[in-house]
Every structure is written in C-alpha cells, then in structure tokens.
C-alpha cells in the first residue's frame, strides 16, 4: 500500500514537474500569444479605395504578426455615438478619442493601462510631454498613444475665391480681411462667404477658437478652482464679427445650423467660401465630400490682440480596459504599426505612403508634431516623393502655424460649456435683435454653475 502511495506520489510529482515545465514554455513575450483584436478603421462613407488601402495595411500587419488576427469596424467619433458605445460596452479593443476626453476616461477607469507597452516602443520616451499629457494619469501612467495633433485653421475654397475675383494665393490674414473677402464672395457668387459651426457642441468649439484668436480663454484654473471667463471682450468681439457678417453684410448665406459633418459637406459642395475647423480635414473633404483638391486652400486663423493663439487638439489611440493582456499587447502593436511607425521609421513611412498612393489616397496632409518638429519634418522628407496633396495651397498654414501660440481646449465640463455656447452662436445668427451682452452674461452664469456643480 505504502509503495503504491509512493508510486502515486512520485507520479504526481512528475506530472507537477511536467506541468510546471509546460507552464514555463509560454514565458515567451506576451505578444507572441495568439490574440484577436478589434480595431477602428475609417469613418463611414469613406471611398472604397480608402478601405482597400486600409485592408492592405491590415494584411501587412497580420503577415508580420501571424499570431494576431485583426477585425475592423468603421468608426467616426461623435459625442452621442461614443457615449452610447461606452455605456453599452461595444467599443472595440482599439479606438480613437479626442485629447479632451482622455483625462476623464482614465479617471473613470475606462482605458487600459499600457504604460510598460508604450515605454517599450523605440520612441516611447520621445513624445512631446504636453501632447502625451492628454493620455496620462496624474501619476504619469500612460493610457493611450497620441497619434496626431492639429491646430484650428481657416479653410477656404480657392475656386470661389477665383470666381469672386480674389487671389486664391493671398488668403486673408486679419479678421477684417476675412469679413471683406466674405462679402465679396457672397456678392459675386451668391454662396455664403464665411460660415461657422453652430450645432452639436461644435458651435461652442469654434466660438472658443474664435475667442482664442482674439486673445480670450473660456476657462481659467487657479489653485484647483476653475473660473468661467465667457463674458469677456474677445468673446464679444467674436460674436459681433458674426453679427456684422450675418446682419450687416449678409455674407453668411441662409442656412445657419451646421456641425462638423454638415459644414464639411456644404464646403465640399462649394456652398461656403471660408470656415474654421481642425487642420486635419483635407482627407474628409476629398474622400467623403468629393471636393476637388484643386479647390482647397488652408491658412492660419488670424491671431489678433494680446495673448491671441490657436486652439489645438488631437487624437489618442486608446485600448479598451476590457482587453486581455495578450490583446492589449497586440493592440499596442497595431497602434505602433498603423498610427506611429509612419511617423518614426523611414521604411514604414515609405510603405504607408506607397499603399496610400496606390489606392489614390491623400499623402502629406498637414499635421502638428506629436514628438517634435524635427521628427515630423524628417518623416515628411522620407515621403516627399509620394506627397499628392496640394501642399502649395496649404503653405501659409504650414508656415504660419508654428508662429502661433498653442492654446488647449477648456478642461472643465468642456462639452457642456460648448453646448451652452452653441445657443449663443445660433441666437446671433438667427435673431437680428439678439443681445450679445445678455447672451454672454447668461452663458457665463450657466457655465459657472455647471463647473461648480462638478
């Protein structure tokens, strides 16, 4: 009996040893494990060629990483759809968010901590600290990878400029010139010379941009206390500008309810001469709105007054907190491959550019650096032979943006404050007798109450 027990005991020890050894076997890097990840692809409505280019990149990635399977889903970040996906738990493993959402999502525990994975990347310590900050917790842990940064810009339709007798190579450089050109375009072509977004929080976003360009800020935070500063002279100036164009010059057309998507649509269709938006919209305009590249022009937003600057923003690629460690490792590999390598590795930059060109997609769209200007300029040199966007038509932006003071978006209750400002913009554009002082006073009070409520 004893010997049987001994034999059994020896057997158990042997089995345990084998199991332990077997357990040791997968101590290979986590990324070597098999993983299936879901990632966001392009915005719905993108051209088939764009999807083909994206699919090509997925194939290249899967070939280089045979243990990883990538499933893709179309995606366009909008506040309501993102909120629904977040609450419903239907976000993919890799998704993109604007800089403004990073901090709160980290605080709410909705993003995966990928600090060690990001730090292990060859460029892990080279991020512009101000840019990386948007994806970091207060203790420095990293929850996302900043993939792109933009500044707001003044976009203009060169064809309408020419039709109105204006020189498309000399876009306006002051707000007074914007007004003058808008009037000429409106009078000569019958379309809106200038328009500004007004709906679904984008009205607030662009009014904040206009305010910053005149030296204003919407919120000031000192020793942890945020004071709303909507009711100020630069903001009043921004609204009086709109009022003058709308009611004195009649140069804003007849439709005033636009958000990011619909204003792109109207601009792409040649119904708007000029508008302000992020500097990264060229791809959307040419891919989704079928705008001719020849008609597109971009310049910096005029910066006037003390403290004037440009509101910037950007995109963070984040990993779903629900992803397993193997999926998180695969997700960061994908982020590195799809979003980052083209910025940091020559061969990847060239390969990416080749794929895009082969599928008739834009290469060389202006961007702001997520690392430093030298790295961005270097990546531009690598792909210069493949650039197919009309960079000459964006030269005044590329030259001017680095001379402008970068200003971040308001941080407290950003979207709610933007929603309040939507109403102000709409009131000025649709009511001739709108009282700007009263509107600003009310918005300031309401926004402060929102911020104080926490």
């Amino acid at each position, binding site marked *: 009996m004893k010997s049987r027990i001994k034999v059994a005991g020896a057997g158990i020890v042997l089995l345990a040893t084998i199991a332990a050894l077997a357990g040791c076997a997968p101590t290979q890097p986590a990324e070597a494990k098999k993983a299936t990840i879901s990632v966001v692809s392009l915005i719905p409505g993108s051209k088939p060629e764009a999807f083909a280019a994206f699919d090509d990149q997925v194939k290249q990635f899967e070939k280089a990483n045979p243990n990883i399977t990538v499933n893709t889903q179309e995606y366009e970040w909008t506040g*309501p759809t993102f*909120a629904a996906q*977040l609450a419903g738990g239907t976000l993919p493993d890799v998704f993109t968010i604007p800089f403004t959402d990073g901090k709160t999502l980290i605080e709410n525990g909705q993003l995966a901590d990928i600090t060690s994975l990001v730090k292990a990347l060859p460029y892990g310590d080279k991020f512009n600290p101000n840019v990386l900050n948007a994806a970091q917790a207060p203790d420095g842990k990293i929850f996302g990878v900043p993939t792109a940064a933009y500044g707001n810009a003044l976009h203009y339709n060169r064809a309408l400029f020419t039709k109105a007798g204006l020189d498309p190579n000399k876009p306006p450089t002051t707000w007074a010139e914007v007004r003058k050109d808008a009037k000429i375009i409106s009078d000569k072509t019958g379309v809106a010379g200038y328009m500004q977004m007004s709906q679904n929080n984008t009205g607030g976003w662009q009014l904040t941009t206009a305010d910053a360009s005149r030296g204003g800020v919407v919120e000031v935070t000192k020793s942890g206390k945020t004071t709303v500063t909507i009711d100020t002279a630069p903001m009043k100036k921004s609204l009086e500008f709109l009022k003058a164009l709308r009611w004195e010059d009649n140069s804003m*057309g007849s439709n005033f309810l636009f958000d990011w998507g619909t204003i792109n649509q109207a601009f792409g269709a040649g119904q708007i001469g000029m508008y302000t938006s992020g500097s990264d919209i060229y791809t959307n305009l040419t891919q989704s709105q079928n705008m001719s590249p020849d008609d597109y022009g971009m310049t910096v937003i005029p910066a006037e007054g003390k403290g004037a600057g440009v509101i910037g923003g950007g995109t963070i690629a984040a990993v779903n907190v629900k992803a397993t460690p193997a999926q998180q490792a695969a997700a960061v590999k994908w982020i590195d491959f799809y979003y980052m390598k083209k910025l940091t590795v020559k061969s990847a930059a060239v390969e990416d550019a080749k794929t895009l060109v082969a599928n008739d997609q834009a290469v060389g769209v202006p961007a702001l650096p997520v690392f430093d200007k030298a790295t961005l300029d270097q990546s531009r040199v690598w792909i210069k032979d493949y650039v197919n966007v009309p960079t000459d038509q964006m030269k005044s932006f590329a030259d001017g943006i680095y001379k402008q003071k970068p200003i971040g978006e308001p941080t407290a209750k950003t*979207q*709610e404050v933007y929603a309040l400002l939507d109403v102000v913009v*709409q009131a000025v554009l649709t*009511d001739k007798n709108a009282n700007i002082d009263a509107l600003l006073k009310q918005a300031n009070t309401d926004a402060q109450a929102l911020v104080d409520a926490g």
Partner: protein
Amino acid sequence: MTTIAKPAEPIAVPRLRARRTPMTWVRGGGLSNLIFLIPLLFIFGAFSWWPIVQAVVMSFQKTNLVTPAIFVGWDNFARVLHDPLFFTAVKNTGYFALLALIFGYPVPLIVAVLMSEVRRWKGLFSALAYLPVVIPPVVAVLLWKFFYDASATGVFNEILKWFGIGPQPWIQSAASAMPSLVLEATWAAAGGTIIIYLAALTGVAPELYDAAEVDGASIWRKIWHVTLPQLRGVLLITLILQIIGTSQVFLEPFLFTAGGPANSTVTILQLIYRYAFQNSLGGNYGAATALSIMLAVFLAVLSWVYFRVTKAWSTN
C-alpha cells in the same frame, strides 16, 4: 318545475369544488394556456416590463453605466426641475402638440370625409394618402430638410416665388422652425389616421345618410349631424393618441434642427436624449430616466382623466 330545480343545487356545489383540483385545472386546459403564455410573459418581461422597472430604479441613481451606481434619492428629479431648459422643453413640446392639434388633427378627418365621397379611384387616393407613411421617417425628414433650404433657390422658396412671396427662413429662424416641423410631421403622419377614419366611415349606416337626404340635409349638415357623431368614438381615440404621440416628438427636432435655433425646438424627449448622450464621457442617465418617468406619469394621468371626462361622449 321548481321542485325539480331545487334538489339539483346542493349537488352542483360539490361538483364545482371538485373541478378546482390541479388535475382538473390541467385537464381543463390551464396548463396548456400557461405554456402558451410563457413565451409571451418572458418576451414582455425581458424586453418591456423589466426595462421599465430598471428605468424607475435608475431614476433614483447616479450612474454612468460603467462604474457602480449610487442611490441619490430624488436628486435627479430635483435636477431636472431646476434645469432652465426643462421649462423651455415643456413649453416647446406643448407648442408642438398645440400646433399639431390645430393643423394636424382636422386635416386627416377632412381628407377622409372627402375621399369617402369620391366615387372613382378610391383605391388610388387611399394609396396616395398613405404613401408618406411608407417613406422611412428619417428619409422623409432629410428630404424635407432639403426642401426647407432657406436660400432663395430652395424648393419651397421657389414655389412661394410663383405666388409673389419672398423667401422664408423655415427651420433657420426661431419663430418659424416649430411650425415647419409640425408641417412635415402632419404630412408624414396624416396617412395612417386617414386610413383609420376611412375604415370607420364604412361603418356608418347608409340609411342615416338616406334619411338625412330625405329630410333635405345639405352635404355639410350630413357631415355635421351624421358623420361626425358616428365617428366620435374613433375621433376621441385618435385625439388622445395624437396628444400622446406629439408629447413624445423627437425625430423632427433631432434631425431638422438639433433643438435649435437657440433652443427654440428643444422638446422633452430631446432633453432626455441630451441628458443621456450629449457628453461623450457618459451622460447623466439618472436625470434622463427621471424625466422619462415624469413624462410617462404625466401622460398616464392625462389619459386617465381624458377617458374619465370623455366616457359619456364616447359611443363605446
């Protein structure tokens, strides 16, 4: 006769009691009834009643549906009632309902009465009247949004030009936005009501018209004294259905104006939507459900009062 009937009574009572055993219940079809009922109970329970219970619970919670919920008592209701937009939304919803009642309620009735008088191509007219209902609502709104282009070359403004009327701002002005929304909503919904009225009109006895005609009644007197009284049951039902429907208007303000210009078309349902989804970082689902519950209770009370008040007038 009575002497035969009387002894039967004491025998009948124990027989009835005997039938109440589980076996008799099964034999009587009770079990099969229950089995047939289970899928229905399950589906309604899972997809209708349980979410209602959850919504009531959520209206007393602070939750972003991700982190654990916290019970906050009546805070959500207080928050809604203190929101300056709440009264704007109530006022706008009331305005929409009123306009829809003034324009939208009589139109289907008039069209149905006129169509019932038509002798030929009745089927064609019915199909034409019902056509807008067949068009997907989102498509219809986007189509009308295009028609409402406020420029001088907009479709409706071009039509107005034929009559010497200048371009109108339609949905681009706080004053005309809501009537514009009602116009489209009436167009979109009238077809369904017309079909209901047409069906009800076929139930009106022709003899009543014959009698009225013999009495020398004109067509208007026939409508007033025969048609309308005969339809009053249906009219009362469609009226409350319309009030409930218009109190929950969402699609038109959402797609046409997103509540603008300057909150002039924000409705209660849109406010609920804003509470829940305006912020990409997770909305105030507690306030959203609190307002939903308030609306549901209001409509339930309104319907109850309505049916109490109109009980005497209804043919049913």
